[in-house]
């Protein structure tokens, strides 16, 4: 029996986000979660980020579908990354559980991608994007799974979402307000949304995007580059 352990938090066994260093001592890939309600543009953001960054970074994606492998299959069809860099986690009708309360399947998917890409001889991954299955405004990622999270909402969901708040809107490291191209059609006041978001989030950044437009993902891609620069120089 082994009841007396001095190390209360043996993260080195679990390689959760609490352990930023690989077993060989190098810094592991930055993990960024993308959450937000269904249909706001999470998969579109992931696809656009892959296209914008794949020439400069080694990227992999984990999707968490509510059912089926829709998102993973969309990314495969769009060929944003080779198939061995995309992995789908099944969530048993509870997408928020898989990214917050029981992150074991997602951690396994991330580690398997790191191992698979490493085994191809392409060197280590720089960035892993984890897309949540799309849930309500309260779903957030565990710090044990990701290093930073992006919360994606859209203008079509109504301009009162930033005002209503919720943990995703108020505390995500980046709030993306997508589909600004639709604002005129749904009668949404973008400046009002920006004011409400500022009131909820203080200094935390907000990006307005129109992903259908050329280079529409630019503000998000720039934010990811900045996080990665910080991550790479961060204390090991």
């Amino acid at each position, binding site marked *: 029996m082994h009841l007396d352990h001095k190390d209360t938090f043996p993260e080195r066994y679990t390689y959760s986000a609490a352990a930023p260093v690989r077993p060989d001592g190098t810094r592991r890939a930055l993990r960024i979660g993308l959450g937000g309600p269904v249909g706001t543009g999470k998969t579109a953001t992931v696809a656009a980020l892959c296209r914008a960054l794949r020439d400069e970074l080694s990227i992999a994606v984990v999707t968490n579908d509510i059912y*089926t492998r829709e998102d993973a299959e969309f990314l495969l069809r769009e060929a944003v990354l080779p198939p061995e860099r995309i992995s789908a986690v099944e969530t048993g009708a509870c997408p928020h559980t898989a990214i917050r309360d029981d992150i*074991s399947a997602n951690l396994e998917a991330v580690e398997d991608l790191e191992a698979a890409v490493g085994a191809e001889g392409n060197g280590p991954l720089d960035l892993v994007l984890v897309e949540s299955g799309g849930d309500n405004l309260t779903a957030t990622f565990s710090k044990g799974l990701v290093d930073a999270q992006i919360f994606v909402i859209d203008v079509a969901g109504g301009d009162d979402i930033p005002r209503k708040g919720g943990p995703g809107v108020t505390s995500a490291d980046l709030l993306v307000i997508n589909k600004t191209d639709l604002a005129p059609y749904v009668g949404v006041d973008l400046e009002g949304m920006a004011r409400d978001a500022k009131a909820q989030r203080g200094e935390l950044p907000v990006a307005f995007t129109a992903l259908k437009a050329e280079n529409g993902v630019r503000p998000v891609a720039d934010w990811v580059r900045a996080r990665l620069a910080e991550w790479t120089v961060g204390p090991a």
Partner: protein
Amino acid sequence: MSRAALLVLADGRFPAGGHAHSGGAEPAVAAGRIKDAATLERFCRGRLHTAGLVAAALAAAAAAGCDPLLLDDAADARTPVPALRQVARRLGRQMMRAARATWPDPALDALAAARPRGAHQPVVLGLAARSAGLAPLDAAYAVAYESISGPATATVRLLSLDPFDATAVLAHLAADVDLVARQAAAAAERVATEGIDALPAASAPLLDITAQAHAAWPVRLFAS
């Protein structure tokens, strides 16, 4: 021995991946075999006395100190369909991650190193119980209970079944869980003298067949 450790291990919120699995309830609901509390109870009783008993005995044997690699082979031999072998190993790997963080132990490290893709979940759970200072009977209880609480929780989500009715089903089956846990622990005890074949090999062919078919469904809510 800490009895409270058993509550931690048997808690449905123990973060070892169980929430994404229905224990065969999803195909049973789709086929109309589970449609209300009464049919859920029948399903759970059947699963408990077959797959539940086998898994509980494997866990009890691991908790008693039997060689986990031998038990892992015994689990393979008692799991005829590839889909369920794969699920058991995937859940075993997730259980291993949670167990090593919760009750660190060189015995867990050794099994993780020997089976990096995961050993069968009941074997890992039994070893985790041992690391937590629990007895073989405790491990058997945790697995026997899990064999019915998984499908009951899944059915609440799949059928929007009244959660009070689903919990009452689990309460009705308490005496059966007692019985199965004791049978499992007794079988595990006999392994020392009679060898691994003393472990039960009860089977539920319909659970096996539907699990294999379910693994190929293009649209499903649960991973198994």
